[in-house]
């Protein structure tokens, strides 16, 4: 026998497995059923959550070494603006839910309208964020001012990038909706984009209290 761990198991070639292969949702042996949207976006979502999760934990532990610096700097943030942005994001997520619901009943015009609303809210979020950044930058604050501002700028900037990316994804979906590419039966793409947008919201749900509120 050649030294090899490629053992040949004939039973692998049964038609059942081959049939399943056509379906990309069965990329893993553990089959998950009916995940909204593409399986790949869920792997992506998990990866993103992991990156942010690690960042959140690192923030918390970095803070425990210099609580005063963090508390003092944190109080310079506008909690009202943070709250406003939270409500904007939650509402935009709600709009996405409505958009998915609309396309599920075959109403692609309505679906596109809800998504346009989402993109508009995303724009508002960006505007508020830029106002905040402008406040901080004009006060001469940079990544190197102290550790709190480093984390604040890093986390919110990375998150902002995701909001922008989500807006681009949703804009593509609106374009396809207007082209009539989606229907009550075929709306995989809408669900995929929706899942991404919800993730952006989900991350902010932790980011907001962590950076703005808890001290």
């Amino acid at each position: 026998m050649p030294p090899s761990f490629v053992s040949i198991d004939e039973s692998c070639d049964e038609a059942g497995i081959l049939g399943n292969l056509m379906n990309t949702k069965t990329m893993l042996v553990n089959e998950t059923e009916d995940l909204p949207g593409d399986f790949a976006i869920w792997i992506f979502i998990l990866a993103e959550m992991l990156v942010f999760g690690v960042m959140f934990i690192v923030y918390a532990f970095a803070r425990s070494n210099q609580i005063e610096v963090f508390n003092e700097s944190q109080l310079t943030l506008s909690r009202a603006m943070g709250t406003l942005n939270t409500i904007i994001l939650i509402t935009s997520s709600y709009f996405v839910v409505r958009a998915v619901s609309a396309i599920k009943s075959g109403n692609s015009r309505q679906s596109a309208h809800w998504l346009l609303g989402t993109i508009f809210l995303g724009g508002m979020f960006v505007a508020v964020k830029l106002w905040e950044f402008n406040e901080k930058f004009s006060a001469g604050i940079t990544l190197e001012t102290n550790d709190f501002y480093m984390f604040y700028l890093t986390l919110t900037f990375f998150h902002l990038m995701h909001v922008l990316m989500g807006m681009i994804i949703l804009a593509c979906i609106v374009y396809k909706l207007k082209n009539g590419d989606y229907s009550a039966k075929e709306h995989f793409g809408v669900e995929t984009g929706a899942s991404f947008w919800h993730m952006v919201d989900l991350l902010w749900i932790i980011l907001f209290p962590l950076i703005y509120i808890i001290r």
Partner: protein
Amino acid sequence: MNKQLNRFATIIWLALVILTIGTFLIGEEVTAGKTVMLSVLLISLIKGQLIANYFMGLRHVSWLWRGIILGYFVIVGGMIAIAYLN
């Protein structure tokens, strides 16, 4: 059927907004402390569950995925709490 679902989503949205305002008020009104920290984290966990299960639609999906999201909030929130209690 759909109308009912939409109304349900609206209720979830309202709950999320109320919880957010709750978080804001805690931040504004109450002096900082362990209870505040823990309650704000708990609110986050609830909000996360609402979004994952009802907005993302994970409640229809295998328990594994719901478990992952719940586990994520518990672990990340838990680690944050540990760091703050230190």
